[in-house]
Each structure stands twice: as structure tokens, then as C-alpha cells.
């Protein structure tokens, strides 16, 4: 593909500010891609901690205030965190797509407190939302007021974030999916002073727990977490989550010739970016040994193209931990066999997304951002016809050049286990 410059265009509101050329290379594309990929990626699976009481209080500092009854105006949950690997392949066989899911060693735990909020409640760390009662049959926004991940005694990180529930119906059964986006606000051990973003997708369980995939992506330019050595293979402990398939994906542009273009302006001072990329299978591995947590990413086979249209306000100030910039997307994932035959597509989009400006010490003046988002799967074709579930994105991008380092998960509700092959099971 030939490289094409995007001509500056006027903003949709007739402003005189021209749209920037995102494909322009302030630094060489390959250098920026390499910097963006300098992250430690933790692919984890949360299983509710049975010792955590369903009667936990949302207001532990005042347990006699029954506003804090768990399940009323929020959820207080705790889960064990397990190493989780999910490697997808497209074989063109009967199933078309097969996902090898493996739940590995217990590595830590997560404790979080969610408070339901009005749909227009803005990201505001430290500020409690006005009370909204938990209604499992309605899609609701929530504030991840507190979230602490612990690996052993030494390595912890605290996060603040926002999320949303998505009620769905699976064969007549009511299932409540939940996804969230969070930003690291504090850390100890290897997480001290780190920038990072967390996303999760899973289900709210009958005992008010959270069960599902949690991905944490932490910048690691010094490569003190990312391991050069092969990590120990995963030791399967149990089936992750019967009825749910998590397709982990690595997405990036094929090379610097792939251009990002502006799409039709959606209005409200927003612009749209059409961003093509290619999907690959990936193995995100991590261990938590005596030397602390280490991660590794093995990129696998090409699976097909993904085209995303990203909607955001180009004039909004760069996102910060206190006030990230918001975005939404519309995405189409096309899965192909090695012979190029399409086996199915999935349509989905981010409905709750936040971005944070990045600076790169090794490339001063190079703009970039890390961002994360969640949204529902809207449908599918081929083997994915009737698909239900969630999308999470946990990513870094450069701006001029528009290089991509995307960590996506397609969470498919898969009651028959059609796509899942349990590793070691």
C-alpha cells in the first residue's frame, strides 16, 4: 500500500483550526511502534473469593449506615487473580475459530468497590457519585471508587475508574455483564511510579462477586517487568468460566504504509478517525515469583483485518489522570482462514472510553496516548451470528505517526462452549 498524506481539512464546526496530519512521522514509525510496545501486559482472571462476605459493607467506616448494604447502591467484591492465557486460532474447520483458554496459577487478588452513578457522572477521582440503586435489569454506569490489586505483600497498585453493566438474556436466563476502565493512581513494589491502565469484562455473580478477565497494561520502558527469558508455562488449575470465551488479540498496523484517515464528522465538535489494523493471536503471559511479577507477549498468527472508527473531540485538552479525554468507537473484526476465507465477523464498539496523554523520554516531542475502553458486542456474522458479549481495549498509540499497540479482548458469551478448548482439560 502506498503511503498517502491526509490533507488538512476544516473542522466540522467551520473552525479555522485544520485537522492535523496524523500520519506525519515526527519520529520514524518503527521507532514509535517499538516505544509503544514497551509495556508489561498482565492477562488475569478474577474468580470470586468465597471467603469475602456477601454482607460486606460499601461504607466500612460506618457499617451502621445501611446505605452501605452490599448490592444496594454499589458492590463490594473481592476476587482471586489467576494467570490467564487465551490463544485464538482460525482453522477453517467445523468451528472455524478455536480459543485455547487456560486458567493458571493463583497470583494475587483484587478488591474493588463500585458505586452506581447517573449516566452523566463524569470521571472524578475522590468524588462520590450521587446514589443510584443497583438495578441488574438495566445497563448502568458505575464508579470504581476503589480498586486494589495485590501480588504478594510487596507489589500492589490502586486504581480509579468507571464502568458499566450490560444485562443480556442467554436462553431465557438473565446474565449481567460488567466492564470497567481504570487508571493506576498509586503503586508499590514494581508498580511504584508506574503509568498504566486496567480493563475488565466479566459477569456479576449471584453472590455479588465479579468473575472474568482483567487486563492490566503498565508502561515499562526500562524493561524491568517485561522478561527477555521464557516464562514458566502456565499450570492449569481449573476451567476459567464455562460459557464464556475470551478472545485475546494483539492489533497493530501492518506497517507504516497503512494510513489513518478522517471519516465523516459525527457532529458535536467530534471527529472520526478510520483506523485499519490487523489482528493477530497473542499469548499474554505473566508470573509472580520471588523476583516479582514478570510478563511476556508472544505474537502469533494473522487472523484478519479490523477496522475501527474512533470518535473523539480533537480540541479537547490532552487527557490526564484527573480528567481523561473520552472517546467512543465502532469496530468490525473479520476473522479469516489462512487461505483468506472469511469465517465470521464481530461488530462492537467502545461506549465508555478514556484516554491519557503520553510522553516518551526517549522521543521528546512525540505525542501519544494510552487509552482504554469497553462496550457491548452488537452482533456478528458467519460463525459469530447472534454473538453477545463485550469488548475491552487497553492500548497505546502514537500521534504523527499514528502507530498502534492494541490489546483487545472479545468476550463472547458462549453457553455451549462452542469456541473454547480448555487447555489441559
Amino acid at each position, binding site marked *: 500500500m502506498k503511503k498517502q498524506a491526509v490533507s488538512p481539512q476544516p473542522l466540522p464546526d467551520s473552525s479555522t483550526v485544520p485537522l492535523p496530519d496524523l500520519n506525519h512521522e515526527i519520529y520514524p514509525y518503527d521507532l514509535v511502534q517499538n516505544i509503544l510496545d514497551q509495556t508489561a501486559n498482565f492477562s488475569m482472571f478474577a474468580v470470586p473469593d468465597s471467603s469475602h462476605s456477601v454482607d460486606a459493607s460499601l461504607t466500612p467506616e460506618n457499617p451502621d*449506615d*445501611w446505605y452501605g448494604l452490599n448490592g444496594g447502591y454499589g458492590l463490594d467484591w473481592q476476587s482471586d487473580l489467576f494467570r490467564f492465557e487465551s490463544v485464538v486460532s482460525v482453522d477453517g474447520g467445523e468451528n472455524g475459530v478455536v480459543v485455547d483458554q487456560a486458567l493458571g496459577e493463583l497470583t494475587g487478588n483484587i478488591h474493588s468497590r463500585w458505586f452506581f452513578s447517573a449516566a452523566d457522572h463524569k470521571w472524578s477521582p475522590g468524588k462520590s457519585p450521587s446514589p443510584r440503586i443497583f438495578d441488574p*435489569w438495566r445497563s448502568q454506569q458505575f464508579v470504581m471508587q476503589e480498586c486494589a490489586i495485590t501480588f504478594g505483600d510487596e507489589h500492589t497498585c490502586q486504581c480509579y475508574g468507571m464502568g458499566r453493566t450490560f444485562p443480556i438474556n442467554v436462553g431465557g436466563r438473565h446474565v449481567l455483564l460488567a466492564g470497567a476502565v481504570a487508571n493506576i493512581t498509586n503503586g508499590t513494589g514494581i508498580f511504584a511510579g508506574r503509568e498504566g491502565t486496567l480493563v475488565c469484562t466479566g459477569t456479576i455473580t449471584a453472590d455479588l462477586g465479579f468473575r472474568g478477565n482483567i487486563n492490566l497494561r503498565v508502561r515499562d520502558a526500562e524493561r524491568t517487568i517485561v522478561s527477555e527469558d521464557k516464562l514458566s508455562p502456565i499450570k492449569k488449575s481449573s476451567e476459567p468460566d464455562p460459557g464464556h470465551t475470551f478472545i485475546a488479540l494483539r492489533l497493530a498496523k501492518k506497517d507504516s504504509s497503512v494510513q489513518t484517515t478522517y471519516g465523516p464528522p459525527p457532529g458535536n465538535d467530534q471527529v472520526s478517525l478510520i483506523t485499519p489494523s490487523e489482528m493477530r493471536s497473542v499469548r499474554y503471559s505473566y508470573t509472580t515469583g520471588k523476583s516479582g511479577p514478570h510478563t511476556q507477549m508472544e505474537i502469533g498468527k494473522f487472523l484478519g483485518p479490523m477496522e475501527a472508527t474512533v470518535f473523539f473531540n480533537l480540541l479537547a485538552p490532552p487527557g490526564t489522570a484527573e480528567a481523561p479525554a473520552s472517546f467512543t468507537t465502532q469496530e468490525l473484526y473479520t476473522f479469516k482462514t489462512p487461505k483468506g476465507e472469511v469465517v465470521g465477523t464481530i461488530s462492537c464498539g467502545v461506549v465508555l472510553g478514556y484516554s491519557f496523554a503520553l510522553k516518551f523520554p526517549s522521543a521528546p516531542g512525540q505525542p501519544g496516548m494510552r487509552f482504554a475502553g469497553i462496550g457491548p458486542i452488537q452482533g456478528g456474522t458467519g460463525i459469530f451470528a447472534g454473538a453477545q458479549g463485550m469488548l475491552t481495549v487497553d492500548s497505546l498509540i502514537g500521534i504523527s505517526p499514528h502507530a498502534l499497540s492494541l490489546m483487545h479482548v472479545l468476550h463472547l458469551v458462549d453457553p455451549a462452549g462452542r469456541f473454547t478448548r480448555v487447555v489441559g482439560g
Partner: protein
Amino acid sequence: MKQKSDPTLNFVPTAGATGPSQNASAAPSAETIQYLMDQAAGFSLYANPDLSRKDDGEKRGFVASATLSRFNIILEAPTSEGVRASNAYGEMVGKLEIRWFIIPNDFVAKPDREPPPCELDPTISQRFVMQEATFIFGDGHDGFRSFGTGRTFPMMVGNEARAVASAVGNVTEGFGKFKGHEGNFTICGDLQANGFKGHILVRIADPESELRTQADLPPMQRQAALDPQSTYLLWAGQKDKGLERANRFSVGADGQVRGMNVPIRIKRLQLDCAVPGHFESKDFAVGQAVAREIGFGKGSVDGANPVGTALNPFLFEGVAHYTFHDASGKAVGTITTNFLEGRRFDTKLPGAQDAPAVRFGFFGPIIAGSGCFQGIEGMIYGSTGAVFYPPPGFHLITHFCAARISDPEGKFRGALQAGID
């Protein structure tokens, strides 16, 4: 005492004062007010679609007829083995004519406002309006017309996917023995193509004792269970006479009142009615304490007018946590329920005109359970009379409250009993 914040947060009706203190010697005592408030007929009915009814050509909504059966629910005293209740389905006592419609989420329902077309989608939760619900007892002389709104909740009951429906209805006009009576009811059952099937929990103010009798009602003529996959529990909620009686404001980190903490004692309850000729309800009976309820409630709409009328009831919501205990006081199971919809109607108590009396209905899904209730699915709903003075004033209440639990294995179903004594 001055209220700390918007009174609409606190269930407090417009007459809100701290208690009948201005002229204490003339004001009725709490015990008297409780007595006056409890001059009400409470009864349970079970509605079952009348399959013999002919289609009248109305294709929109749910326009149907149901038979109304006497339905007695007796909660056993909990034991270490759990909580059970007998569900006795009795003879037909009347019929229910309905004209109900699914409505958009933002539709403001009124008795004189026909809703726009909207189809039932059994896979999602939807609002519906009971545009007309006419209860006709016996030979048709006694009964009442009503209006109300509610919601559907897609749930599995046993292995069946059902559109569980719950709603609060208000009596708009009584006839026969019900003429001139105020009251409300709450339904919980299934919305089906041929209408509504389920429980109706009714509370009608009856200051002159026109609807009630202290005499024995005719023995129930039992019939087979109309919903063997579900078990219904029934209880009364009343204030303790001890310290647990007091409500407290819930105050947020910003110092603002966000709602009210309400403790309530849960007791066994017996309701019954029959139609030997005219409608008759047995005086309700409250028995031993079986559980403690702690809850938080608030107005559903910030800044809403605190007045609750028939056409514009005050909307409230809240969370309640029930801890059931055995005779020794040991907890055997807990239930957490979110009352997503409550409708409060301000009223007057004959004999205590200045008391801020209210009657209300409410419903919501069970959110979680533990102990013998671990993993349960269902709804809790009720019809209530109360007198609220804001804290530190007193609060008097008598809930008629029920739970509908998916129970295909009969874990919560007890042997049939005649009463709570």
C-alpha cells in the same frame, strides 16, 4: 427539630413534623395511631388467566380476564433447616378484568392517558401500565377498579423462562362493600400472552370495619397448586418497641442527608378472605418475630414534590437486608432486595387527622441471599400502612410483605397449615 435536607429524600410526607408534640395532651398516642393505622383489610389473591374468555378483538396489550382464588401463605417459624411456607390455593372468589400495556421507559402513565404501542419483549425488563384492573368478587356486587404501573423482569423460574411482572396498583373506585375505601395492592407473577398469573397482595383501609370480620371464614376449598415451580413467603413488618424502633438519617460525606435508615422487625402474618356471599376479610394476625430487616430508603427523583397523591404518587426506592433467625436467635439465612419501585400515597387516619399517614406499595428483585437463601432468585413486594415523623420522631408501620421465590424443588415449601398459632 429542623430537617437537615430535602425532605423528599426521607419518605417524609408533607405533614412532616417530629411528632404530635404541639398539643401532646390532646394528640393520640403512638399505640392509638398504630391501632388506627391497622384498621385495614389485608388479603392475598391468586390470579389465573381465564382460558374460557373469548377474544374480544383487542389486539394491543393484555386485555384479559383472570379468575381470583383465595390464597393463603403461612410462613413457618424458621429452624436450623431453613425457612419454609405453606402455599394453599383455595376456591375461586372473584375475577379480575385487565387492560394492561407495555409502555416506553419514559412514558408518564395516567388513568386518562392511553399509552403508545409497545410490544412485550420477554428478554428485557420493560415498564407496563395497568390501565384498568377491575376486581370483582362473588356475584359481582363487591369490588374495585384500579390503576397502576410496574415492570417485567425476565427470569428463569425452574427451567422456564418467564416475564416476571410486578406492579403497584391504587384503588380508584370501589363498589359494593368497597365503595369509599382507599387502598392499594402489589402484584407479583408472570405476564403471559393470555394475561397475568400470580399473587396479588391487597391492603384496603377499613376504618369502619366494613370489610373485615372477626368470625371464622368458611373453610378453604383447596385446589392444586397453580404455580408449583414457585413458593411464596409472607410476613409482617413492624417496629420494635426497643431501641431498634428508631429511624436514622443517612448522611453522605458531603454532610447532606441522602436518605433514611429504617430498622423493622419481621413477624409471621396471617391474611385470609372469602366470599360466602359478600366479600369478607379476616382481621389480619401478626405472630412471632422471625427476622430483622435493616434498610435504606430515599426518594427516587431528586427534588421531587414530597406529596403523594393517587395521580402523582411519591416515588421511592431502597435496599433491604433481611436476616431470618430460628427460635434461639441464630441466623439461618439472609436476603438482600433492592426495591426499585415504590409508590407512596398520603392519606388521613380517621381519629388522628394530623398524623402524617401514608400507604404504599413496593417491589424489587432479590439481589443476593446467604445461608438457606444462598443462590435464590425471586422478588419481594408489599403493601403497607405507615405513619412517618422524621427522626427523632416515631415511625409506625405495618408491612404486608411477600417473597416469590423460584423453587422448583420445593426447598422453601412447607406442609399446609391452618394458621400461625
